[in-house]
Structures are given as C-alpha cells and as structure tokens.
C-alpha cells in the first residue's frame, strides 16, 4: 500500500497552497503557473543552484534562497516577485552578461534589427543575439527580456574561447556557455555516459571532456541530449543551426533500427528541421541514439532525393511523367512470366507497403518471388534468428534482470538507448557479461568481457549452453570438439553466474550475425536461454523486420506468419484476394538473385541488393535516392521517406507503432504502396484500389492479429508468431579457416547494418562517416608495421577465394593477427572469418 505523501500548507505571494512535502519551491511554482525564471534548473535533473535566477524571499530564511534547492516546509511564507528580487536578479544578470555576448540584448534597435537583419547571422563569430544560432529560442534571452534589464554597467569581457567544430553533429561555442551545468548533469544522471565535466576553476572554469579530448575520443555517443538541454546557443546542431524555431511538431517512430524509439519531428514550412526524443515510458524513455537524433534531417533533405520518375535509355536519363512511368512499368511487368519475375522489398518499409508489395507479387504477378534483403543480412542464420524472435521479451525486462548477457553488442552509437538502460541496470547492481571480439563500450562496465578468437565462437557458445544444462552433473570433460580458446575456466564461471541469475536477459547485437557459424551460434544462444530461463532480446538492425515477416514478404511466408504451404491459409487468402496463391517452389530468394539467376523484370522497392548491376533484363528501382552511383536502373520511381507518409512498423519487441506524415513528399514522390497499386491497376489487376493507408491497414487486420487501431495502436509487446520455416540458403562456403604461412591473418567481415532503404546512412549524412567507417579495414599497429602500411593506405586483401581493396585504419584496440572490415550486403559471399594476406596497393 503506497503511503500518501505528507502535504504541507504554504503561502506563495499571498496565495495559500497545499502541496506535497519535500518538493522544491520551484516545482510548486511551476505546477501552479507562477513564473520564476531559471537557467540551470531542469525538470529531469538534480538541482544545481548556480545561476541564482530563481531567488525568492522566505520568511525566516536570511538572504534570498534559491527556489530550486529549497524544499517546502509547513507554514512557509514565500514571495517570488518583489521589487527587491527584481533588482537583485537584474544585478546578477548584469554579471552574467559581462561575459556572455550581449550586444543585442541591450541595443535600442533590437526589435527592428530582428526583422531586417536576417543575413548577418552567419557572420562566424557570435557577438550578440542576431549572430547566434539560438536567436529567438534562447532561454537566457527570455530571462533577460522578462527581467527588464536594459543596460550592463560592467566592463564586458569576450572570453575568446575556441569554437569547437571538429566533432560531428554539433558545434560548441563556449563563449556562449553560461556554465549552468545542465549538459554535464544530463550526460551523467540520465544517460550515464559521463563524457563532459567541469574543468578548471575560478574565472577559467570550462565545460568539456576531461583532458581536452575530442568528444569522439572521450566516448561521446552523440545522443544529442546535451544539445537539447543547453539553454543558450553554446551547443548547436550543425544541420539546423540557422533554421530558427520550428513551426510545429509531429510524433513518429524512428525508422533506423528495430528498437523503434519514439521521436518528435520538428517542422518548419513543410521541411523537417530536426528530430527530438518524445517522452515515452513504453519503449525509448525519452531517449534517442545518434541516428534518430541527428540523421533524420540530413537524410530526408539531401538534395539528391528523387523527385521525379525517370527512365534510362541508351545511357541517358530522361525525366518522365508518372503516367508514362506507370505505363512503362506495367507493360514490362505484364509481359513477364511469374518464374522470371523477382521483387525485393525493404524491411525498412512500413507494414502497409510490405503487404501491398507481397500482394502485388502474388496476385498481380502470380509469382511467389518476393523477398527482403534481411535474407542477405542474416544469411544462414536467418531461421535461427527468427527462433530468437519467437522467444523475445520486452526491453523493460532489463530492469528486472540481475544478470545481463550481451552477445556481439556495442551500444555506443546504434542502440545507445539500450545502453542507457544497461548502465542504469548496473547502477542498480545488475551484472553484465559481454561477448565481443573487440573493445567496445560495454567492456568498461561489464563484470566479465569474453573476447573469443574469431572462428571459435560457435564452440564457445555451444560449451556455454552445455555448461548451463539443468541436469548437468560432475565436471565437464575437456573440450573435444574443437577449441574454445582459453576460455574454459572463464566459461565455467560464467555458466555459474548464469545459473544463479534471477530474471536473466540475453541481448543479441549484430556482431556475430555475419559469420559462417551464425546458425550454430544463434542456436546455442536459444539453448542457453532455455536452460537458464532467460528472456531473449534480439535487437534487429532493421526497423520492420518483424513486420516484414508478419506481412509475408518472403517466399516461404504468407501474411500472418503462416507457412506458404498452409492449406487453410491459402484457401483463406484465395477467398480474400480472389486468386490462387502461387506455388511455393521453386523458391526464388535474394540469394538466388545474387548467385546470378537472371530475371526478366526485377522490382526493387527500397532495396539495393549489391553495388553491381543486378542480373535482370529490366530493373524497376523504387526508392528515395537514385542508384546511379552504383548501377543504372531502367526505370526509377521516387518514393517517400518515413517522414512523409503514414503507416505502421513493428519493432523487435513486437509492438505495432505508428509513423505519421509530418511533411509533404518531395517533388512528385509517392508512397510505395501507392506506386505499386497504380501499376497493378494499370495492369488491370483487382484488389489494389486502396485509396488510403488506412484501408490497407484494415485489410491487414483481417489476416494478422493486433492490427485493429490504426490511429493509436496498442503498442503491446509480443513474441513473433510465425509458423513458417525459412529455407536455409545454400551454404556459401565450407572449408578450412585456419591461417597458414600463405594467408597469415584472419579477416572478419561484418555486413553494414546502419542502412535505410538499401543505402548506408553515412552515404547521406556526413557526420556519420567518422562513426561508421566503411570501405576500410582495421589493422593492429604491429601487423601494419610488418606490411609497412600507414593510416589511410589502400591495401589489397587476398584470400583463397577473393581479392578486395580497402583503406587501412590503424587501431590499437584491434587484436593482433585479426583484421576487421565492414562490407555491403551484396559483398558478403565470402567465408567469414577467412584467412587472408595483405599488401600495400602499388600506386
């Protein structure tokens, strides 16, 4: 039974109030609409008491206590707005403004200037409000204007601190910093990352990472929380620095990974100018990662966005009207037989797009040849990953866990929202065990970090699953089925911890999904989870992987997650769709495509299977960006990004979440579902006369549970209900992975995971390039020295099966003898890991 908080009676400015005991005077004022100016206080942070703006008079307390730090007591008499308080506040503000560029605050012309002097903003040095990116949005400006200050009679000192622009995503002009400490507190108290601190003292006091490191070096996650709480223009987001205040907001869901954080899109004049976290106790708790926070604006506004359809003929690009485009596409598709048709649709698309896409393949093309690129990403482990999704638990289970396993997970950039939960859990006393081949951000907070040699992971996890079996008695015999590395004792210890854990959870990151042995690894993880009764949290890289399965965008799966061979379901669909569901085999998948099988028409919806021209007579490329940096498609159709359409995603926890149209599509772009429907209708096919997303959603609700309320979905977590089994792809490789004298190093490749609609995010967002480096190979300094390779050199990496040129990045943290490279999904037809040799490329 919760005890009622004791309430106290107080007098504020003559008004009698009954309030909860122990809250601060400031909290009482804010709840009761009494204005008290603040600069360093923030509702989510502990009180600081440094700015002295919120001073009040309290009978019986000498001087002017600060409202943010003073708890209410019974009988307190408080005055918030006397003439003396006003005078004192102005005096303190004068001191503050003697060190903060203040010319515009006290200038007589300020109101006229604001109207006419818009162009002087980008002068480079902020000496006043008009020159400041935060003009009109600055809390200091508001406090000064409310105070009535109109002159500063102290000598003004411009501190002449450097403006720091070298780190990505946000600039730091410390001349504008008022040392309120909000950024320090939010990084420590809410995010738990502790990257920025107060440095020095006296008049030299500064804020920044300790030891003058850059934010990148200091471990900053670029979550942007510091930028969001900064009351002045000291921290300003690079992408929208000079845009000014937004006109309106729209709540939506992030499309960049399977967590599905809730965000607020900021809009000005039909343009997205920023994205901020939305308060959301269900999934993201008011947090975002660097992708959601900083990579929406640039991605959706890049000038290369497709605005008009075009066709390619004889190497020339011709812009055409939608009518012609649809007709051309319909013509080619009508003339294509079902077996020679192929469709790849992105697991980033919303459910409604995916449903219509697979319906098009099955109904309009009478073909079962529909697949997503998730097949390429998960490779042979796809089925086992699905198994983990069938065992999933909500993210909030982290809060109950005493022991948390993280497998191949790094939460510094992507998934940093989960990282915040992990740090909170550790502060509560939970223990974290992490398995990862390289130094990663969880290593410093983990109780145990297991760092397996690449290639030995399958045995390691098998042993761990084995050691945690419930009926295990006696000592485990020494490993006979291959090496587990040096980890035998460690594994026994970990197994012990696992068995004693209460409510353990296992988080699965992407690191081990690209290896040869991923099926065995994922299978062992499932076994381990069953043995110790752990909840599994697969954290899919694709925001709507779950949805793509439930919508049936795979040859083996029908809408609802049913097997393509399910007789009853086929009949049901036949009734609903009016046509026979095409036959199950022979199966065409994305692997078939990459293995060279030539289609007559290939319909790519938000997909870029590889950097090479896909084998097809006619390629329809439907996306938000053109493919022409890689290959030329025959017809290119502009579609909408997730900010320009309504729809639903299903996150990794199984929650159905809404995306909401925030701005109009660019140019003549149309939502994916609408383009597909127009083509189908042109082909004379029925069942595609949807006039809105809502109608599609309605049809889905007849086939899939939980799709009832489109406007405000219930967002209930649930395990993947999919009876279908995916076919194992042909093993891409079998053979030896031991190094020898000819191939003395081991190369581990990971498939690029931070993508949207087939393109890596860093293609369109420059700030991501230092964070997610691509086309590079990480080399240990000693290995580099042996090959006389310097930072940035092009190196030729040769294996028994391929040769590749990559740029070298020398990393001390890279284990010796091992190379790490990230490759596009189409390139992953290599054994992984594989023995290689490297040499510097001849110039």
């Amino acid at each position, binding site marked *: 039974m919760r005890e009622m908080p004791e309430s106290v009676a107080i007098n504020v400015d003559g008004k009698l109030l009954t309030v909860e005991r122990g809250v601060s005077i400031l909290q009482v004022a804010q709840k009761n609409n009494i204005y008290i100016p603040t600069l360093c206080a923030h509702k989510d942070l502990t009180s600081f008491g440094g700015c*002295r703006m919120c001073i009040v008079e309290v009978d019986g307390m000498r001087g002017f206590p600060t409202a943010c730090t003073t708890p209410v007591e019974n009988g307190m008499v408080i005055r918030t707005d006397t003439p003396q308080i006003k005078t004192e506040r102005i005096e303190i503000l004068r001191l503050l403004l003697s060190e903060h560029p203040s010319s515009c605050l006290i200038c007589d012309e300020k109101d006229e200037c604001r109207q006419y002097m818009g162009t002087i903003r980008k002068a480079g040095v902020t000496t006043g409000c008009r020159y400041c990116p935060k003009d009109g949005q600055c809390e200091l400006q508001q406090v000064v204007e409310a105070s009535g200050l109109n002159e500063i009679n102290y000598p003004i000192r411009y501190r002449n601190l450097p403006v720091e622009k070298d780190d990505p995503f946000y600039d730091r002009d410390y001349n504008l910093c008022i*040392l309120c400490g909000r950024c320090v507190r939010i990084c420590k108290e809410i995010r738990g990352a502790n990257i920025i601190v107060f440095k020095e003292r006296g008049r030299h*006091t500064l804020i920044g990472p300790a030891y003058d490191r850059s934010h990148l070096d200091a471990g900053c996650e670029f979550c942007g929380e510091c930028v969001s709480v900064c009351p002045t223009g000291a921290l300003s987001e690079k992408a929208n620095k000079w845009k000014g205040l937004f006109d309106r907001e729209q709540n939506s869901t992030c499309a960049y990974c399977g967590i599905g954080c809730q965000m607020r899109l900021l809009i000005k004049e039909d343009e997205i100018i920023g994205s901020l976290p939305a308060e959301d106790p269900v999934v993201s708790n008011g947090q975002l990662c660097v992708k959601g926070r900083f990579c929406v604006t640039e991605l959706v506004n890049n000038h290369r966005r497709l605005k008009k359809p075009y066709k390619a003929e004889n190497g020339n690009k011709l812009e055409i009207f939608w009518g012609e485009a649809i007709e051309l596409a319909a013509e080619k598709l009508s003339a294509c037989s079902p077996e020679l048709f192929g469709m790849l649709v992105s697991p980033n698309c919303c459910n409604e797009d995916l449903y219509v896409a697979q319906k098009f393949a099955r109904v309009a093309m009478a073909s079962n040849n529909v697949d997503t690129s998730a097949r390429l990403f998960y490779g042979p482990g796809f089925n086992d990953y699905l198994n983990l999704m069938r065992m999933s638990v909500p993210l909030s289970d982290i809060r109950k866990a005493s022991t948390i396993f993280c497998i191949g997970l790094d939460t510094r950039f992507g998934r940093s929202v989960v990282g915040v939960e992990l740090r909170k859990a550790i502060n509560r006393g939970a223990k974290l065990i992490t398995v990862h081949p390289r130094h990663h951000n969880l290593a410093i907070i983990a109780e145990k970090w297991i760092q397996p040699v690449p290639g030995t992971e399958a045995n390691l996890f098998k042993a761990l699953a084995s050691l945690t079996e419930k009926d295990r008695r006696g000592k485990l015999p020494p490993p006979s089925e291959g090496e587990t590395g040096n980890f035998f004792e460690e594994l026994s210890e970990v197994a012990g911890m696992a068995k004693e854990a209460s409510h353990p959870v296992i988080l699965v990151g992407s690191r081990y999904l690209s290896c040869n042995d991923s099926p065995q690894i994922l299978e062992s993880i499932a076994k381990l989870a069953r043995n110790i009764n752990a909840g599994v949290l697969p954290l899919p890289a694709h925001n709507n992987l779950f949805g793509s399965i439930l919508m049936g965008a795979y040859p083996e799966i029908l809408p609802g997650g049913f097997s393509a061979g399910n007789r009853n379901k086929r009949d049901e669909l036949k009734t609903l769709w009016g046509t026979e569901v095409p036959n199950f085999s022979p199966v065409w998948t994305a692997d078939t495509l990459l293995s060279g099988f030539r289609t007559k028409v290939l319909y790519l919806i938000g997909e870029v299977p590889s950097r090479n021209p896909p084998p097809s007579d006619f390629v329809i490329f439907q996306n938000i960006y053109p493919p022409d940096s890689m290959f030329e498609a025959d017809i290119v159709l502009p579609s909408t990004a997730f900010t320009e359409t309504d729809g639903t995603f299903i996150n990794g926890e199984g929650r159905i979440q809404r995306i909401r149209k925030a701005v109009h599509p660019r140019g003549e772009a149309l939502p994916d579902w609408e383009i597909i429907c127009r083509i189908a209708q042109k082909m004379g096919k029925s069942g595609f006369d949807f006039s809105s997303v809502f109608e599609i959603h309605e049809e889905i609700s007849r086939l899939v549970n939980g799709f009832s309320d489109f406007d405000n979905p219930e967002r209930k977590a649930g395990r993947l209900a999919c009876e279908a089994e995916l076919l194992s792809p042909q093993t891409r490789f079998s053979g030896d992975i031991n190094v020898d004298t000819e191939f003395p190093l081991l190369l581990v490749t990971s498939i690029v995971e931070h993508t949207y609609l087939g393109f890596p995010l860093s293609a369109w967002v420059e700030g991501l390039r230092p964070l997610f480096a691509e086309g590079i190979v990480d080399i240990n300094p000693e290995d580099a020295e042996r090959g006389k390779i310097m930072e940035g050199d092009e190196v030729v990496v040769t294996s028994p099966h391929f040769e590749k040129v990559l740029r070298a990045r020398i990393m001390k943290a890279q284990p010796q003898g091992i190379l790490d490279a990230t490759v596009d999904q189409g390139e992953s037809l290599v054994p992984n890991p594989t023995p290689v040799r490297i040499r510097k490329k001849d110039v």
Partner: protein
Amino acid sequence: MNNGLNFRQLEETKAQILLSRAAWKSSITVCGGTGCHAQGGTKIVQAFREEIKNQVLDGSVELRTTGCHGFCEQGPIVVIHPEGIFYSRLKAEDVPEVVTETIVNNRIVERLLYTVPKKKQRIISEKDVPFYQKQKRVVFAHNGLIDPTDIRDYIALDGYQALVKTLQAMTPEDVIAEIKASGLRGRGGAGFPTGRKWESCRSAVSDTKYIICNADEGDPGAFMDRSLLEGNPHSVIEGMIIGGYAMGASAGYIYVRLEYPIAVKNVKIALQQAKEYRLLGESVLGSDFSFDIHVFQGAGAFVSGEETSLMASIEGRRAFPRPRPPFPTQAGLWGKPTSINNVETWANVPHIIARGADWYSSIGTQTSKGTKIFSLVGKINNTGLVEVPMGTTLREIIYDIGGGIKGRRKFKAVQTGGPSGGCIPEDMLDLPIDYETLAKAGSIMGSGGMIVMDTDTCMVDLARYFLNFTQEESCGKCIPCRIGTTQMVEILTRITEGKGEEGDIERLESLAKTIKTHALCGLGQTAPNPVLTTLRYFRHEYEAHINKKSCPAAVCRALVEYRVVPDRCTGCQRCVAACPTGAITGPRAKAHNLDPTKCIKCRACYQVCRRDAIAGDAIKIVPRREVTDARDA
C-alpha cells in the same frame, strides 16, 4: 602492551611507561614541525643521535623529535629537559658542543640562547621566554613534549584518559551535554556551537552516521591545524573517538590537504598505533563501541575546505559546494548525517571531558569560551603559533607575545581570518578577541590566521591580493562569485596600476554587496570582506590611488619611483650589490646614482638600505612624477 587494552590496562600501561623513563637523566626534544624540518631539523636529529652514541650516553639521555613548539621565528628549536633549557636557531654543527657542554657538563652554551630583541636579554629557560609567558597553552601544551610517532608519549601524559572516562562513566547524551555546557564553538571559522551541532547529528535518524575532521586548512599563512596534526595527532584522534561515541557514528574521516605530507604521515602512524592499542576498530578498549578513522587527502583546492564541497570530494566528485538545506547533520556524506568539525575543535574535546565544562567555560569571554590558537605572521618579531584565552586583546598578542613590529616601521593593521576576514587598525588594538567583537569590527575570527602589517603595506594592494586568491580558488559554480570576484579583481588591479576611475569605490561596494548576498557558499559570501574592511578603515588610501594616482605606502609599482637621497647615502654599495638590474651605480664612498629606466621596483635596495642604522633611508620610494616615458603603458 600491543595486544589491545581495556580500561584498566591503559592505566597500567601509563604507569609502566613512566617507570621505564625514570632512568633518564636528560631528555632532548628537537622540534620536528614543518618549519624547523625545512631549516635542517632532520640533520640536527641525526647529529644528536651520532653524538650521543659517540659519547656513550645511550640509556641515560633520551632524544625525541617532537611536534611544533610554536616559536617558528626561532627555529630550529631544541629544549633540554628537565631544566627546560631553550636553544634556538640551532645548526647541526652546534650539536657536539651542546651535548658535551650542556648534557655532560651541565653548562649553558650562551650563544645559542634566545635573546629578546631590543632588550639584549638572554633567556635560559623555556618558561621564561616572553613569547610563551603570556600564552595559555592547553591544546598545544604537549606539542613540544611528545613524539607524534610514538603513542606511548601521549599515554604517558594522560593521553586517552578522557576516552576512558567517556566510555566508562558517560552516556552519549552526557558527552553532548558536557560539550554544550563548555561553550565550545567551531574553530574552523564560523564559530558554530559545537554541542548544538553534535546534538543535531545525534538526533538525526539513521543507522549510519559519520564524523569528519576538516584539516583542509587553506587560509594563506595559517598553519595551526598542520602543527596539531603533525605534532599531536592523538589529541585529535581521541577527540574524534569521543565524538563518534557521542553522536553514534560508525566511522570518521580526516580530510587533510594534499600539501601536508608530514601531517598525513604522522596521522597514519598514529592511527595504526591506536588500532594496535585497541583504541580504534572493533570494540574500543573492550567496550561495545566500534569506530574507525580513515585519512583522505585533498587535491589542491581551497574550496574543498567548505563542508559540502569537502564531502563531495570524499565521495569522489568535483569539489562543488551545494546549497543548504539539507544541512550535513541531516544529510551529509553519502546522504548520511555527518558532523564536520575543525582539527582544533576536535583537539579541545579531550580536555573538556577530562577537566570538565566548568573549567573550560571559566576561560575566555561571555560568548567565546576556551583558548584559540593563532598563527601570528607578518611584520612581527616573534612569528609562530600562539595559544591564548579568548578575550586576550590584539595588543597583548602583537606586542607582549609577538614582540612588536619588526624593523623600524610602525604597526598599521592586522588581518584576521585570512581571505575571508578583515583588517583591524591600530585604534582598535585593545579589542578583546572573540567571535562577536571581531565580527562587529568587520572582520571574523576565521581559522586563526593573524597577519600583522606595518606602514610598508598598501591596503589596496592587500585587498587585491586576497581577492585574487579567492577568485582563483572559486569553484566556478555560481555567477556572483565566479564573475563578481573577477570584476572586483579587475577594478582593484586597475586602481593599483594608477588607472582607478571615479566611481570605482562605489562599484566595489555594490559588487561586494551582490556577492555577499547571493553567493552560494562561504567562499563567495566572505570573499569581499578584505575589500570592505580596508574600505572601512583605510578609505583614504583608495581615494589617494584613484584621485591622486598615488600609493601612500609606496608599494604599488606603477605609482612610485625609487630615488637615492644623496645626502644620506654613505656609498656603502650594498644596494648596488642587491639590485638585480644594475639600476644603481656609483663608486664607493660617493653618493650612488639610481637610473629609473632600469628600475623594476623590486624593493631590494630599499630593504637592504633600511637595515643600516647609520644611513637609514638613503633610498626613498616616492610618488611617481608624470613622466613621459617609453615605459608608460
């Protein structure tokens, strides 16, 4: 003796120690305080050890390195017992003579005796030294008698008897009542009634409580706490154990500033020995009270002497103060009720318990009881540590104990309370020292720093010096202190550079008011005090600087010029030798020549010349003429 004692055994131990020392014929105590240490103290000890061995005196002569004797001006100090023969300014070369003459042959070495300046009177016995005569040494009494690294010395002088009395005969409430009745007030500066603080901590509801000894002593020129911790750490430890018992605390922390390595070393040795004697740890002296003390070192910041930032520092955070409420006795270290007291406060506790509150409150004034240790420094003949009853006048301290102003200048002012305090001019020297009278005069008691200034001191420059100190040490958290003190320093600097403007005094006063009213912690709230008191008593100096661009004390470099007075100069060339830039030239026996373009106004020539009783002021520092000079900035 080392297996942990109970009450009875402590008494027996003391008897045993005294017995074992009865055989000593002589006891040589060498001051081991930081000051004497720096002047070659360790070499002197080494020399004595060798000489005693050479002359085969082991067994009958005891050599002991003690805590600070307090008369730092005269260090290195050696006192020979039982006579109490007081030798000062000793060098290692003097040691063989001392051993032979004084120890073996019972003769005094005259040249090593202390001479009262201007009286040419040599003093033989320590008790006759005027510096000590007017002091009432209670807390400091045993500093010169015990070796701080040997607990037996402390026990031999009734050490830990107060603790025995506490554990055997008093309840925690009894202890608190006694401290309250004694009238003991915090010696760290604020003067808060200690008994009330302890009572507040005791009445807080928590199963974990802490006590802290604040040894962060940051005032420039203050070294009382250092000498106590170096010289008699057990007195502090005993006080803390008694306090822990009274308040129900489970552990105590001694927060020592980083710059006191000898204090840290000696405290740690003392704690270790106390543990061995079962005075700390599980079941103190066999009672059911358990207590432990940890040492924590600071990291070089003045602000960490402020109680809330001190606690932040112990918790591993940046030493930022925080507003109160909650007060430390409600929620302090790690959120638990905590009582923070100064070193000297803790050291008073055993005396109060042993001799009673009535005895203690009979010393001092109506509102300020007991004694206070002051570090008497500056332009004074006898610098050192002085312990006097509250109510002693400033005049007594400065003249009777301090021996008056050094050199030929006159008294100008005395600064009490360090950078948080204020200056007191000559016409207030008969002020009896206590918390209230000093506050009324515009100053504070502070931790006990007492800096004496003569007429060669510029009060504006002094204010600038102190404010510069507090500005640099400001933690940077709140606007009034961080920026307000910067503005004040800027104004003061301008004034001392001859760039003072009309309205500067009013600006200083206005800033001072803002900072005092709104600063978050004591550092900021007291930072303007030096300016306010110098304005109060020496306003004319400010006005001279601003209006006439002149420095009456001839200190501020931009406002003065150095000149040779030809008819006073004897041509002795001492200033020529002293000048670092060769600004003074001139042949012997002829009046010297001073080139103002080379003069950097370092005062070297002035000080050298002043010493000469014959020439006397052949170098004058005068207000600067309006000179159009390449140097004019």
